[in-house]
């Protein structure tokens, strides 16, 4: 395993291009584009203000830099460094900015979620979408880039609009049976849209691409409900993590619960422990303050491995533990207990390997064959706060508070 030298970055804005060749990082108001393998600086762009958000277009040719305070978005071209594009939202403000899947349109959400403006870089045309909903996840693009689902709220009712990304034609517009829609997500095969309610009501609705309601799922009433939702890459399973510290798995044929994973404090399973302790193992539990809103309880993070065989979860009560579940046997496979709260974990996009970090100077890797912890070799201590895998699965990008470092894996990484 090799580590690169440490580079500066700000705002945790550091992204690899979709084709895997370039690494873009933001340092204050500058955008730095490097080659991934040599880390040589290829391009350097200067924006008008501190960059709040940065993203690559899908064809890896353009990068957008959004400056929310100024209400500006600047787009840079990799092929032609002289090319420039500036979108000024004016007095209406800017809250979020993103690319469309074809890499030629930019969707800006204005302040107070008044509307979503669709700017075309090909024709300089503008379109508006009214009443977008301000929620956890109000916009989602299907994986093939054909459709966009947008959550709307009109007259105190929730709606979902499905647009065709080609020409932004409104394909479907339907009301959802939610009290307060919190998020929506397309299934990887693009045929089903999962819509979930806010935590005050446990409700997950499944809509077909043409707007028909396929199924509703509600595990219980009154207690705080859904905290996180994720699809398996094969579109077979929908994992729902809730505030009652359980994960429920729905199957794509009947949309009924086929498994329920509980995060209990005492583990009796013999094979499941990272530190090789004898069972039963007691997992440290932190009881959250019941009077505060959005309590630190419940399953907040879910991630499927790329082959859909494993599911990694984190229960906020037991924040220093990552649970790995085997989806074939529908049972607990491993419990990874760390010394402090786990900040970020992500599966390798190519193989079943999980990388996680807890905010200290170590990087932890787990795979079914074994696990390993690596100290990041930098002077001055590099606190790993978040990490991202490169799309080819051989490189990890580690982000600290204002630093970044790349970690190159060897091809054979399995040692206990």
């Amino acid at each position: 395993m090799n580590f690169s030298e440490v580079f500066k970055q700000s705002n945790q804005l550091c992204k690899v291009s979709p084709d895997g060749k370039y690494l873009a990082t933001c340092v204050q108001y500058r955008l730095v584009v490097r080659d991934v393998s040599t880390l040589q600086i290829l391009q350097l762009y200067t924006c008008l203000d501190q960059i709040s958000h940065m993203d690559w277009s899908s064809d890896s040719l353009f990068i957008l830099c959004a400056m929310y305070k100024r209400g500006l978005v600047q787009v840079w071209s990799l092929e032609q460094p002289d090319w420039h594009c500036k979108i000024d939202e004016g007095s209406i403000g800017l809250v979020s900015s993103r690319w469309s899947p074809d890499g030629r349109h930019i969707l800006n959400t204005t302040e107070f979620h008044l509307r979503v403006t669709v700017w075309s870089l090909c024709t300089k045309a503008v379109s508006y979408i009214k009443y977008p909903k301000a929620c956890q996840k109000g916009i989602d693009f299907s994986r093939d880039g054909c459709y966009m689902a947008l959550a709307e709220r009109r007259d105190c009712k929730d709606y979902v609009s499905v647009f065709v990304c080609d020409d932004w034609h409104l394909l479907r517009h339907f009301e959802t049976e939610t009290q307060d829609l919190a998020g929506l997500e397309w299934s990887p095969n693009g045929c089903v849209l999962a819509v979930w309610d806010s935590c005050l009501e446990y409700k997950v609705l499944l809509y077909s691409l043409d707007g028909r309601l396929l199924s509703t799922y509600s595990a219980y009433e009154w207690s705080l409900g859904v905290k996180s939702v994720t699809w398996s890459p094969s579109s077979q399973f929908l994992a729902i993590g809730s505030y009652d510290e359980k994960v429920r798995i729905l199957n794509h044929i009947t949309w009924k619960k086929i498994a329920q994973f509980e995060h209990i404090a005492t583990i009796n399973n013999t094979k499941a422990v990272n530190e090789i302790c004898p069972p039963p193992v007691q997992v440290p539990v932190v009881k959250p303050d019941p009077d505060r809103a959005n309590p630190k309880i419940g399953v907040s993070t879910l991630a499927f491995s790329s082959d859909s065989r494993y599911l990694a979860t984190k229960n906020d009560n037991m924040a220093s533990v990552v649970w790995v579940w085997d989806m074939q046997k529908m049972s607990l496979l491993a419990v990874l207990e760390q010394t402090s709260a786990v900040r970020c974990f992500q599966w390798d996009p190519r193989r079943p390997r999980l990388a996680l970090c807890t905010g200290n100077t170590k990087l932890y890797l787990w795979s079914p064959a074994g696990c390993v912890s690596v100290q990041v070799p930098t002077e001055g201590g590099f606190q790993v706060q978040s990490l991202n895998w490169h799309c080819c699965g051989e490189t990890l990008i580690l982000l600290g508070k204002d630093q970044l470092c790349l970690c190159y894996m060897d091809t054979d990484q399995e040692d206990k």
Partner: protein
Amino acid sequence: MPESSLDIFPPKVKDICSSSIECRPSPLRQSSQSSLPLHRNYMLSTFCTEKNVQECLSHISQEVSSLGLPPVWMESGGSSEMNVVAVLNCIYDLIQLHRRGLRTLENMEVEQLKSSSNLDYLQLTSTQLKEQLELSKRENTGLLERERQLQLKVKSLQNCLKNEKEEVQKLQNIIASRASQYNHEMKRKEREFNKLRERLNQLLVDKKEKKQAIDVLNNIGRADGKRSLWKTEKTEAKHEGEMYKTLLSDYDIRQRELLLENAELKKVLQQMKKDMVSILSSKKPTLKDDQHQDDDIQADLEEEVFDSSKESVELYCVHAREKLTNSIRLQWRRLKSHVERLDNQASLAQIGRSKNTDAVSRETHEEEMDRLKLEIQQCKDFIQTQHQLLQQQLSSPYDEEKASLLSDCYMLQEKERFRDEWKTLEEQRKIFERERRNFTEAAIRLSHERKAFEDDRATWLKHQFLNLSPFADSNKPQMSKSKSAFLISKTEASAASAPEKLIKRPSDTTSPTPRCVPLTSPSTAELYPTLCLVPENRSTKPKRLTEHVEESSNFLNGNVPAQHKHWNDREDHSSHTLTKEKTSSI
């Protein structure tokens, strides 16, 4: 012992009497005994007679004194005269005593009655009390029972209460968390509202409004290079269509997967069913009540056969599916009961240690195991020896001759066979070659003959023409013309040869005769199609032609007949060559 008259007295008196009398046995014993039943009656001097007066007197005085009365008679003097006063007193005392006695008797009787009635009363009350006691005991137990039940109820109610309290607590917690969530949201919304208000104020106050704008250096092309389309109904319909296509393909894929899965599962079920039926039917002799099962199994087997013949198409039908699952369930139940029975038997065998039936099964089982082990061992040995031999084979020293021999030894037979076949094939080929040569020779001869025939005919025709027409010489100068002319002459020559052939062999070439009127080259040119053999070759092989021309030009000076003859030779030669050409071209 005189028991008669003295019986009525109280026992004490009786005792005294009996004690006093003991020292002197009374003479009246016998008489007193006989008068027992008459003790109540007034007895007439049976006690005292004239004989025993003294004794009686003394006896009575003793008795009286024993009763505490003054003595009746004193034994002083010899006179037997009694003190009458004393006696009367005594009698009076005795009567008083007697009356007293009677009174006490009455009193006692009364008392006895009283006591007996008391007793009865007490008995009655005691029975009553006993009954009451019973009753109250029963009531007590009933009450105890009720108390117990009530206590149980109390406990359960307490539990309920606890649960309800817990539930209430939980609900309160939920309400609290929901309330805090609502409050949080409210605050957030209020903050946002405030921001909006501020912004609105700001916008109203601000004179210049910054407009939205985009500034692009130059438009960039679409990612896929196509031109963007106008939004029309057609595109909308296209989008709808594409959407439905995506959905349909997804459903198709899923349905296919489900079909495959279904087919697999059905196969597995069928297999399971077969296995179960076979297991159950093989275990038949060990079952006691196998009659009815036998029939069932038979029916199943028949059904089985029938089912397999129907194949998978039928299995898609709902009834067939239900039948399959039902029969599987039935078989499974039977298998389960059978296994349970076996288990029971095994446990009984362990407990009862009965050797007969179970030992047999165990023994057979062990035998089977031994047999299998032996088989395994044999197979292993066999594999071992094979392996050794193979190793030997591979590791043997490399001997060239032997190797070459060995390398061929597997193929010897086949090689010989191939050789034989090759021989036969060779022979056949030779035969074919020969035949082919024959055929070609025959073809050559045939062509020769044909040529000759044609020549004859030509000459005959020419002859005819020459005889007919006055322009016999006109052809001659044409004979000495260029190649084309030469061609014509040649054909004429061939035409000349043809009639000879005609003479030789009568054939049906009468076609040139109707055309004999024009005698110039066209006429002979018209002969071309009839002499189909010659012109083709001529046209394809001009070089050779020139040779022929030169060859034959030597012979142009001669007479026609001589020419003819020569021509014939030459023709033959040339035709030879020509046919050779022809054959070569073939």
